[in-house]
């Protein structure tokens, strides 16, 4: 079967991601910004798919687009939009931001120009069929300790949220 991961799709999805990202910071209405962020995240999931990582793509859709962003929207929708539309936006640090962006972009270009040979000269052809199984054996075998620490951190965050939200425990 011919690979679907052609450069054409990469450019399409990368373009969607860029447009979405720009929309996130330029829209005045926070709900529009959040929706643009969702578009960006979905395009990112498609790029994961192109990298033969279907599991990561699926998790990206469930967690970010389906879970976290819905909670985001939830909060934003309860805020008075009219007032925030008239407010000045918090972009007084744009000079610092621009410098940081230029430096980061320069770094990327430098890496691309200097270290051409670290990039593979052809597309990867990993068999997609057992991606999920490989992720599972890695997570629960080789990287067990790191995985458990990450879940402990999340548990602490959950308990912290409950403690802060509840008046009387």
């Amino acid at each position, binding site marked *: *079967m*011919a690979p679907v991961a052609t450069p054409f799709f990469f450019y399409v999805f990368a373009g969607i991601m860029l447009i979405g990202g720009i929309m996130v910071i330029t829209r005045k*209405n926070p*709900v*529009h910004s959040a*929706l643009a962020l*969702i578009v960006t995240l979905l395009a990112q999931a498609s790029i994961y798919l192109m990298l033969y990582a*279907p*599991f990561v*793509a*699926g*998790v990206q*859709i*469930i967690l970010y*687009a*389906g*879970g976290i*962003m*819905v*909670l985001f*929207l*939830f909060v934003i*929708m*309860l805020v008075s939009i009219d007032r925030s539309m008239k407010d000045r936006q918090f972009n007084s640090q744009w000079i610092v931001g621009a410098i940081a962006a230029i430096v980061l972009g320069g770094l990327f270009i430098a890496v691309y120009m200097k270290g051409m040979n670290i990039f593979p000269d052809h597309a990867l052809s990993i068999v*997609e*069929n*057992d*991606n*999920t*199984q490989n992720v599972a054996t890695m997570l629960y075998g080789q990287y067990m300790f790191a995985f458990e620490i990450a879940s402990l951190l999340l548990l602490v965050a959950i308990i912290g949220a409950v403690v802060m939200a509840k008046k009387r425990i």
Partner: protein
Amino acid sequence: MGQIIQYIESYLGSDKTPGAAGNMFWALVYIMLVFVGLSVAVIAMNWLERKILAHMQVRLGPMRVGPHGLLQPIADAIKLLLKEDIIPTEADGFIFWTAPFIVVLAAFTVFVVVPFGPTHAITDMNIGILFMLGVSSLSVLGIVMAGWASNSHYPLIGALRSSAQMVSYEVAMGLAVVSAILMTSLNAEGTGTLSMIGIVQAQLAQGEWFIFKFFPLGLIAFFIFAVAMVAETNRAPFDLAEAESELTAGFHTEYSGFRWSLFFLAEYSAMIAVSSIAVTLWLGGWLRPFPNLLSGATWDQGFSFFPGATFLFFAAMCFFNAARMPKHPLFRIQTIGLAGFGAALGLIGLALFIPAVSVRIQDIFWFAAKVACFMYLYIWYRGTFPRYRFDQLMRMGWKVLLPMGLGVLVLTASVALLQQKIWHP
């Protein structure tokens, strides 16, 4: 031209899904078939729901348009399409416009991986069940957008309720699904699968449907899913998002005409989608009843008569009711129509007795029959259960189903380990 025909024919006789075989033509054909089949199923479901609910409440239901109201859904569809499409002035135009499309997209895209048979699926993904849960969770987004963009109080409250409900029941649902996926790994290699076709094949290989596996653990997981899926689709008794007595119609109050019908379409196809997840995970997908207990050529032969016999039964019902129609000349067209419908069903039934047809169709038939049972359950719930209060709903989700799901998951894992390590080392 010859090349095209060769390309089309190259797929025939392969034992893969068109997506896995990479055949674009047949993938398109399957997509069209699924789309048409779903739309017909939604139309039929609309009629059945009104009719069955009516009979449960000792009413007749729609009787005027067509024999026994058979053409009522078509009349409804025409009415909806001809209605004026109103967008409130204060609404956020673009979001109001896109919300119904997102809900419909999420509800229909899911069917890409639904396995109607070992080869009858559009494609089989490595992450099948994850894809289904993920994409169907995107429909929350459409509902929230619709509720907010309407810029009105009832839709906003309805959308908030609905999304809170869907987000909380997704957790319990996910745990139930994980305990079923865990059961797929009980084979020689010890690796499970997320692919929808793989899950059904695991049930075939292990010789039992997962609902009966590790009794009663599989049954409890199935029960959790069956409750959570009603809440996920915002149906009675969990239809707080559109509680008529409190919120007029919930998140789609401001929608009318075509856009409203899109929400309607999405709701019913989402119901079919979650039912097919339940059928695939616990009820053996396309497998006929007792594939292992009553195996052998004779039983295979016997069960292959089932699809045709079912259609013939419905045809007989149609003829019976046509004979019972009032003899008044006003009813003549309706009687002829009902008899014609019966004749069509009978012809389909007879065609299903041809071995070449029945071999290809019976997988789809068993899958559809199992899904149809769930659809009937949905109507039954709606006819019999009173609506829950919102705090009861939340308590049920977080304090009953979630701990139960966690417990079942841990128990299933322990029993599976015991079975692999001790009983069958």
